[in-house]
């Protein structure tokens, strides 16, 4: 039985480890070093500049725009998406007596809601670029056809609206996924609890607040982490959909786009790597905060 054990283990692990080391681990490690140099892509000509790149980030107004926009998205996109997702998921279960497994057709609704999640963000960005088109787009067309001509805007060209337009697309594309996720979480709550709440005379909102929501906290938690990570990215939608790209006056600039432009258009590879490291620490902070609050929640439930 021991025969060939090591040969099998080596065969199973070595190819994947080589791939992992070459294409994943080594680039991540190199990025930290590169962020301390002024490398412009010429082999052997990377000068060590210490924290110079990081100091420059603080004075790069476009990058600061990007940080601000990512921060706004980090707060707004998860809140709105989870809000709508929770609302729709609990609505689906509200119709039936006992607050669970409710209204007819909820399966069909879930199928429709979920679909955008499967589309590439590029497809979504191109689609919404059309929707927002000021002259022949769906949105302004709809407003005109119901007589709200005065509300038509050039959505992506106006600095005060462009970021909202981008966030709306992110929310639109992810709500369905979280409806399905939350719906599954509600389904796994024991039916007796809803029946008890009903016997106690709790209405829909009271049941949601005291029974449903506390018992699906973990799912909501996961949703916050995932949407937060997506909000720190937002690269594809911004790069494909917004003017510039990056929006009027950097109104929709995001960190990923700044990084991409500095690296692959300006050739400032060292500087771009510093942005990557900054993004890494933002993601890490988010993950650590989420883990810590998650631990607290579990204790409360226990």
């Amino acid at each position: 039985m021991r025969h060939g054990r090591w040969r099998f283990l080596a065969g199973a692990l070595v190819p994947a480890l080589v791939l992992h080391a070459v294409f994943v681990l080594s680039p991540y490690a190199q990025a930290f070093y590169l962020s301390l140099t002024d490398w412009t892509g010429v082999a052997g000509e990377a000068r060590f500049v210490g924290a110079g790149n990081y100091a420059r980030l603080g004075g790069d107004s476009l990058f600061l725009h990007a940080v601000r926009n990512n921060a706004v998205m980090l707060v707004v996109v998860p809140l709105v998406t989870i809000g709508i997702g929770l609302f729709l998921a609990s609505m689906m279960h509200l119709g039936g007596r006992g607050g669970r497994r409710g209204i007819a057709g909820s399966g069909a609704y879930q199928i429709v809601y979920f679909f955008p999640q499967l589309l590439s963000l590029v497809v979504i960005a191109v689609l919404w670029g059309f929707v927002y088109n000021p002259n022949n787009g769906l949105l302004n067309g709809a407003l005109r056809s119901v007589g709200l001509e005065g509300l038509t805007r050039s959505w992506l060209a106006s600095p005060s609206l462009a970021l909202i337009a981008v966030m709306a697309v992110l929310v639109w594309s992810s709500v369905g996924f979280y409806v399905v996720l939350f719906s599954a979480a509600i389904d796994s709550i024991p039916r007796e609890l809803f029946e008890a709440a009903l016997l106690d005379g709790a209405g829909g909102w009271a049941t949601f607040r005291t029974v449903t929501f506390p018992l699906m906290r973990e799912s909501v938690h996961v949703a916050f982490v995932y949407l937060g990570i997506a909000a720190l990215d937002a690269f594809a939608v911004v790069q494909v959909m917004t003017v510039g790209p990056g929006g009027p006056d950097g109104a929709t600039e995001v960190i990923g786009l700044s990084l991409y432009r500095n690296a692959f258009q300006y050739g400032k590879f060292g500087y771009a790597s510093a942005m990557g490291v900054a993004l890494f620490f933002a993601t890490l902070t988010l993950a650590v905060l989420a883990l810590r609050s998650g631990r607290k929640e579990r204790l409360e439930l226990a």
Partner: protein
Amino acid sequence: MTVTRERAAAVAARPAPVRRGRRPGTAFPVHLAMLAWAVVTALPLLWAVVSSFKTDDEILNEPWSLPATPQFDNWSRAWTQASIGRYFLNSVVVVGGALVLTMLLGSLVAYALARYEFRGNRFIYYTFVAAMFFPVFLALVPLFFVVQQLGLLGTYHGLILVYAAYAVPFTVFFLHAFFRTLPGEVAEAAFIDGCSHGGVFFRVMLPMARPGLVAVGIFNFLGLWNQYLLPLVLNPDPDRYVLAQGLAALSVSQGYRSDWSGLFAGLTIAMLPVLVAYVAFQRHIRAGMTAGAVK
């Protein structure tokens, strides 16, 4: 992780909704709210499909109307002249190759780490798992030069290797827990019958892990098919553009030529395979993807 699979199983094996007496007062507003979001979701998609059959003139002047006569020509123009067909096939080659490689390597590593005790086992596991928490943007610049130095820039196999390298960590993470819970007796019986280690893996354990493989396979397929950042940086040759990349390039250049109908047709073509797969496997897909999220 046990939670993950339980939930996946819960979603997959969910019984058909039981209809019960409803309070008539709540049903109507509830339906209205649900219908409203369904319209918000579906309308832009339907609008794009309808627009793909219209003339440029109709698109520009009557965004809400149906096409007078369906313009099938838009589709063939998008497929051939705008190269959507070529991009489509590039995507099939790259994603197909990467998916096979990812599943093979990912399941081998997950199995070896889950079922064999050896020094460094935990270390290797965490090396893979840690990579899931790093943003790809951090690796982007060095990755470009690694791929360039290996002479793999703008090649199918280069893209396949990189796609697989970035999809393997999650696959390992997901399948590791799966292999741990499979019963060991069957494998032991196979060993006694003289089966080799590789034989036990391919002929006994892998078939037993099928539900997990399907779930993570669907997850990987969608992730790889929709990949944009990696090809954007590593695949500069327009002849080898993948679908997402080609569509993005087209939306910029078509904008100037204002071939609106062709671009709508291209967009619809890009959505179609995902829609077909979704209609065919929708329950599996939703179960697999939500299971993937609740790590």
